[in-house]
């Protein structure tokens, strides 16, 4: 009969920092990883693209940049549609999505997000549809005129709710017992806000002629700088829970994502003169943002699967309290 070792140690490579010693029940997780699939980080990426695009679309509308307006509005419509489909598809019972609208609970970031989405989605959709109104057959002229009338107010409504769309998903992840998400709680909203700006600015650079893409370039650059700076700061404040962001699949995704965002940001600086360079930089920023979302998602899952990230900080906290009481 085997005897369970009180302290779990890991073999293999010798780490520079000694492994934290801790006890667990057969190495099994204490907290559960979320049952969410890749649809959820995908939604968070698309939500960011949609939020930034809606803002670019409304800004372009008010400053008479027609090409940027079209890219912004259509980008917001497309991204939020993809995101919404991903979101519903990930439910255990997709047909019951409507139950999200039974209550409005400030203690549930998902509830709050749903309500922001019910304003953002239809208004971004309306503004996006207005960009396509010239495709309507003549007998639907009345609809085209209607879309034209409501396009601006709808676009502005989507832009006003966009900052909420860009940031609430950070609270959604952080408001869990998943160590790598919860410990990231103070920095994650800034990372996601930056990521949204970087990705949507990237889309603007990718799809808009140079002459009108100025605001997209600025948005992309500002977003990328915010994302990278906030990521650095966030990781520094996470303690042990930062480890999964640097290891394994999450670590590889994160490093690639950061490199792409950095390259995209550098490209942005010279993108006002070369369309092809602007397109490449925009694509890099989009990819960088997407990879960072998947990295953060994966790091959370890894931190939930390994009991170390739950037990060690809690044990340290208890030991400190005890030492404080005795001392």
């Amino acid at each position, binding site marked *: 009969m085997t005897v369970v070792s009180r302290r779990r140690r890991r073999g293999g490579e010798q780490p520079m920092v000694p492994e934290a010693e801790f006890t667990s029940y057969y190495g099994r997780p204490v907290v559960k990883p979320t049952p969410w699939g890749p649809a959820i980080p995908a939604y968070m990426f698309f939500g960011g693209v949609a939020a930034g695009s809606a803002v670019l679309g409304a800004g372009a509308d008010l400053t008479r940049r027609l090409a940027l307006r079209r890219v912004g509005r259509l980008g917001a419509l497309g991204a939020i549609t993809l995101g919404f489909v991903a979101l519903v598809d990930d439910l255990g019972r997709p047909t019951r999505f409507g139950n999200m609208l039974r209550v409005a609970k400030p203690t*549930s970031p998902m509830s709050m997000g749903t309500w922001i989405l019910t304003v953002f989605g239809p208004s971004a959709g309306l503004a996006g549809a207005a960009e396509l109104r010239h495709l309507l057959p003549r007998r639907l002229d009345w609809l085209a005129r209607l879309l034209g009338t409501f396009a601006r107010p709808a676009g502005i409504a989507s832009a006003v709710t966009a900052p909420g769309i860009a940031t609430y998903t950070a609270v959604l992840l952080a408001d869990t017992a998943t160590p790598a998400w919860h410990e990231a*709680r103070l920095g994650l909203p800034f990372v996601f806000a930056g990521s949204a700006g970087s990705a949507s600015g990237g889309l603007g650079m990718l799809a808009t002629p140079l002459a009108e893409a100025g605001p997209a370039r600025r948005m992309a650059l500002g977003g990328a700088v915010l994302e990278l700076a906030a990521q650095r700061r966030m990781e520094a404040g996470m303690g042990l829970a930062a480890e999964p962001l640097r290891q394994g699949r999450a670590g590889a995704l994160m490093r690639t994502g950061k490199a792409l965002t950095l390259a995209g940001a550098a490209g942005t600086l010279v993108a006002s003169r070369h369309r092809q360079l602007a397109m490449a930089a925009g694509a890099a920023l989009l990819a960088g943002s997407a990879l960072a979302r998947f990295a953060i998602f994966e790091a959370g899952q890894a931190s939930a699967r390994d009991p170390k990230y739950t037990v060690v900080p809690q044990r340290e906290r208890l030991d400190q309290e005890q030492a404080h009481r005795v001392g």
Partner: protein
Amino acid sequence: MSTQLSGPDPSVAEHAGWQQPQPRKGFFTDTSICIGCKACEVACKEWNGVPDDGFNLLGSSFDNTGALGASTWRHVAFIEQRDDRGDFRWLMESDVCKHCTHAACLDVCPTGALFRTEFGTVVVQDDICNGCGYCVPACPFGVIDRRIGEKDTKNVGLAQKCTLCYDRLHDGMTPACAQACPTESIQFGDLDELRERAAARLSTLHDAGVEDARLYGHDPNDGIGGAGAMFLLLDEPEVYGLPPDPVVTTRELPAMWKKAGIAALAFAVGAVASFVGSKA
């Protein structure tokens, strides 16, 4: 309605909106007299119609159940220990949902499917839950999960966990696990009374020289405002797979919303600045 997110709360059902709350019900699981018979696991499955969660040999002593989950509402843990002198001891513990005073699963549920009953317990309404899965990572104990299985599996795709036999409580009955427990390791009753019973049992054991004995989940000042299901353990909580110092994640939620608000503002200012400085 209360918006209290942490700390002691002696009237949790009343704060959830019940006008005639019942005395808060709970479990006291005394692991020092658990014999590992798993009658609780079986009784729970039978009464609540919980489907199987696989028939596996896990290689973890007599524990082939693994952990609490969507289809495991009582889980008996088996720990084999040998001390420095070679003496052997066997720890057994029947784990269950803690029915927290501040329940993260309930707080984050976006549909209201998870609710606080008049008995102060936390229950999923199967006809409301849409299987969003948010409660799963929210729980600091890893209790609740989304049920997986074939299309015709009962409540597949929904969040599932111990209901503290909500249906039996309505008829003044004892929950199935406590009813089936042959050693009264699982005790059911009014929470106030159980806390006294747990404290008395602890001092009996300490007087008898069992220095390892300790209570878990009994303290209303802990990170979850005290559990509705408390335990007497003979080793550190993490030995049994329990978090040593669990905290309800929503305790930090106001600070999180504040940061998100600042980040949203930064996003908005950045967006405006992108246009203000650009030539049309």
